[in-house]
């Protein structure tokens, strides 16, 4: 029953999206159409119904109702409750339902709260949102119904990929989806503004919170995904430039650019067409990412269940949305009037530079990700890895970070470099000192040296905008910027230190033997079998002592899951303030013979945790900025309501 109710809610929501779209079109065509009043309420109800459908899906997963095909395929009665719930979105159909649900709720929120934009632009925006939603509703209802029943009912579910039974991963994909959805709202705003040609500061201010929100979730999602790959895959790396990872990085790069161009448009009414363009690009990157991950056209280390049919559907949606938006752009952009001018040395110019460099990085990542597909069209099989991505993205990221050291200090419109001579000298001094230290510590490693030199300079420079201000009076958005930029420096330091100073050790040890790695001394104390709810494992007990201190015990495992059958290596990490010890248990070294030596792979990774701390700081910066913006928006809203109320009372 619950499944049927969910399906009914989904159909109703789809019908309302159609109504929202239709009445929006009617309202835009005929001035003063009565249908205009319908758009906002319909958007609200549509969101509520989508939420109802999603709640139904959560319920059937919580109950492990195996008569629902999706549950039977992705869940198992023996699974812990948290993973049962997470199973609802840990698959294609459920994640698509989550997507439309959040998009519907976001639409409801816009419809309820947003009053800054001219009503026509608002209607055009909600029309855009309904249009995007409609595609996803069609996708769900016609090609991936999450509520499909199974007959006969299987006695047990097929389980979830054991690699996915992990708290990090249970919440990592939905975080990314929330980011994608936020970008789809930004896209709707961009389309709405293009339709009515009202691209201006009001549009930027209305769009900005959604871009910020999306960007925060994308940042968190990428950070969490990177950490997940780091400890779960057991390969010791934190970023593999895998298509699935790139698929999440590309929307982030576009959203970061959009965020910065948005602030130019909001503050100075410049970069008008460009901001709209970025809005389209950012959403198209999240669609391209979804497409790449779901269609399986690229081979990835993250094994996802793929289905070319879904790929076709997503590609069709991609073509309709993005093709349509770009066509609209081509027709309308020339008639969007030019924004305000600015000088070469100005905050605007620095932000334009940031945008161009981010777009360049995006291009590098996109090309590298798709290149295997291109060469395959010509009959050659290739794979593209870090030797390409690392230096090529550095070509754009390094200049961007250099400009980041001064950009935030520049004034809008026109400035003199002489005015910021002191901060520039400070940053340059820090960078040169860092460079000297880095060269002496890690000779020959080019990229890590650049990173080690840049990170402290960016860190110092990111704090400079606070110079000479009373800290209590600094507004939240400024704090947000400072913390986010500081987070970039922190993450960069982590990446560079990991690249420069990691020591790795691969050994075969008998029980009782020990080996050094970096400052650590590791002793293999014993190997024992252990069992979990749906796996058995061999567990090593390692006694690790740092620089002669008392040993700390850690337990890497080699796990065997049985539903479905799969073996995984569970790495064990020891975290200190100055880095992480990373241990992996391998096979028996001599194939069982020769008196039991065990393979161990050990890494000492100094400062590696800074990568994810930096990521979290960046997201925190975004959150502060968002809170600041929303708070001031709300204040303005309340004030305007009061004025309206007084006017009404006075009968004016």
């Amino acid at each position, binding site marked *: 029953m619950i499944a049927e109710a969910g399906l009914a809610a989904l159909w109703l929501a789809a019908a309302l999206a159609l109504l929202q779209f239709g009445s929006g079109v009617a309202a835009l065509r005929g001035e003063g159409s009565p249908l205009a009043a319908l758009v906002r309420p319909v958007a609200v109800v549509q969101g509520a119904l989508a939420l109802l459908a999603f709640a139904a899906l959560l319920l059937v997963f919580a109950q492990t109702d195996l008569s629902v095909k999706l549950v039977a395929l992705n869940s198992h009665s023996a699974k812990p409750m948290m993973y049962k719930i997470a199973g609802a979105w840990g698959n294609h159909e459920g994640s698509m339902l989550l997507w439309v649900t959040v998009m519907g709720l976001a639409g409801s929120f816009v419809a309820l709260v947003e009053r800054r934009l001219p009503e026509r632009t608002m209607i055009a925006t909600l029309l855009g949102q309904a249009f995007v939603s409609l595609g996803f509703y069609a996708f769900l209802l016609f090609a991936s119904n999450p509520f499909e029943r199974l007959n006969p009912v299987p006695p047990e579910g097929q389980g979830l990929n054991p690699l996915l039974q992990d708290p990090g991963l249970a919440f990592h994909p939905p975080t990314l989806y929330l980011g994608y959805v936020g970008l789809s709202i930004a896209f709707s705003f961009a389309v709405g503004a293009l339709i009515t040609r009202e691209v201006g500061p009001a549009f930027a201010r209305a769009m900005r919170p959604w871009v910020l929100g999306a960007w925060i979730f994308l940042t968190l999602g990428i950070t969490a995904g990177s950490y997940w790959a780091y400890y779960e895959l057991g390969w010791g790396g934190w970023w593999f430039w895998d298509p699935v990872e790139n698929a999440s990085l590309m929307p982030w790069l576009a959203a970061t650019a959009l965020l910065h161009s948005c602030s130019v448009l909001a503050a100075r009414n410049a970069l008008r067409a460009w901001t709209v363009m970025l809005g389209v690009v950012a959403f198209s990157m999240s669609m391209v990412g979804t497409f790449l991950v779901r269609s399986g056209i690229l081979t990835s280390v993250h094994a996802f269940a793929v289905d070319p049919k879904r790929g076709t559907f997503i590609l069709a949606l991609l073509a309709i949305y993005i093709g349509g938006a770009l066509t609209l752009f081509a027709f309308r952009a020339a008639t969007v009037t030019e924004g305000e001018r600015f000088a070469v040395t100005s905050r605007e110019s620095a932000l334009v530079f940031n945008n161009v460099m981010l777009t360049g990085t995006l291009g590098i990542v996109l090309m590298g990700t798709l290149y295997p597909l291109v060469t395959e069209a010509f009959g050659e099989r290739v794979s593209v890895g870090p030797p390409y991505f690392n230096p090529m993205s550095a070509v754009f990221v390094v200049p961007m970070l250099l400009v980041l050291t001064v950009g935030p200090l520049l004034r809008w419109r*026109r400035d003199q470099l002489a005015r910021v001579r002191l901060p520039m000298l400070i940053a340059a001094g820090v960078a040169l000192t860092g460079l000297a230290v880095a060269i002496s510590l890690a000779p020959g490693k080019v990229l890590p040296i650049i990173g080690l030199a840049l990170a402290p300079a960016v860190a110092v420079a990111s704090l400079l905008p606070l110079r000479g201000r009373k800290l209590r009076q600094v507004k939240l958005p400024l704090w947000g910027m400072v913390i986010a930029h500081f987070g970039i420096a922190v993450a960069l330091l982590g990446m560079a230190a990991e690249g420069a100073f990691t020591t790795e050790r691969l050994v075969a040890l008998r029980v009782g033997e020990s080996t050094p790695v970096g400052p650590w001394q590791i002793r293999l104390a014993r190997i024992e079998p252990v069992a979990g709810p749906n796996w058995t494992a061999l567990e090593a007990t390692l006694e690790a002592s740092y620089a002669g201190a008392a040993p700390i015990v850690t337990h890497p495992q080699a796990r065997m899951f049985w539903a479905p059958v799969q073996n995984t290596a569970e790495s064990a990490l020891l975290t200190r303030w100055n880095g992480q010890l990373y241990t992996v248990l391998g096979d028996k070294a001599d194939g069982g013979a020769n008196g039991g030596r065990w393979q161990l792979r050990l890494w000492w990774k100094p400062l590696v945790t800074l990568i994810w701390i930096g990521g979290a700081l960046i997201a925190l910066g975004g959150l502060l900025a968002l809170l600041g913006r929303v708070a001031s928006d709300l204040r303005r809203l309340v004030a305007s309501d009061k004025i309206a109320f007084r006017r009404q009372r006075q009968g004016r």
Partner: protein
Amino acid sequence: MTAIKAKHQRLILALIALAAILAAGALAAWALRSQASYFYLPADLKANPPEVGRAVRLGGMVKAGSVARAADGVTVQFVVDDGKAEVPVRFKGIVPDLFKEGSGVVAEGRLDAGGQFVADNLLAKHDEKYVPREMKDMTAARAAVRDTQ
């Protein structure tokens, strides 16, 4: 600094953006030609070897009886063949679970001066859903399994 006098600041900005994006594209295209690692079957590798030290991937079947472990316990030595040619491979590390004699493998690494393939990474994922796309064309290698079993 002076303000831009040109009337078409927007045009200049657009051109800068376009130039940067084209530069990114050109840079990417140039780098990809030299950095992408190509996929080889043993027969291709013998017939047309890549330069020593260049990153490539080698796919084929692990020849039965060829896997030998070195005394250090962490280096394996084996032969990849496709029924036409054989390439000796050395790998230092923890081999994946599905790495078995007579089974398919994709080795990422490079050829050394002695004609041996030094692998950094082994991919041997033959679970029920995943077959590396490269393995699709390995009819010869598959047929070779028949002989080795």
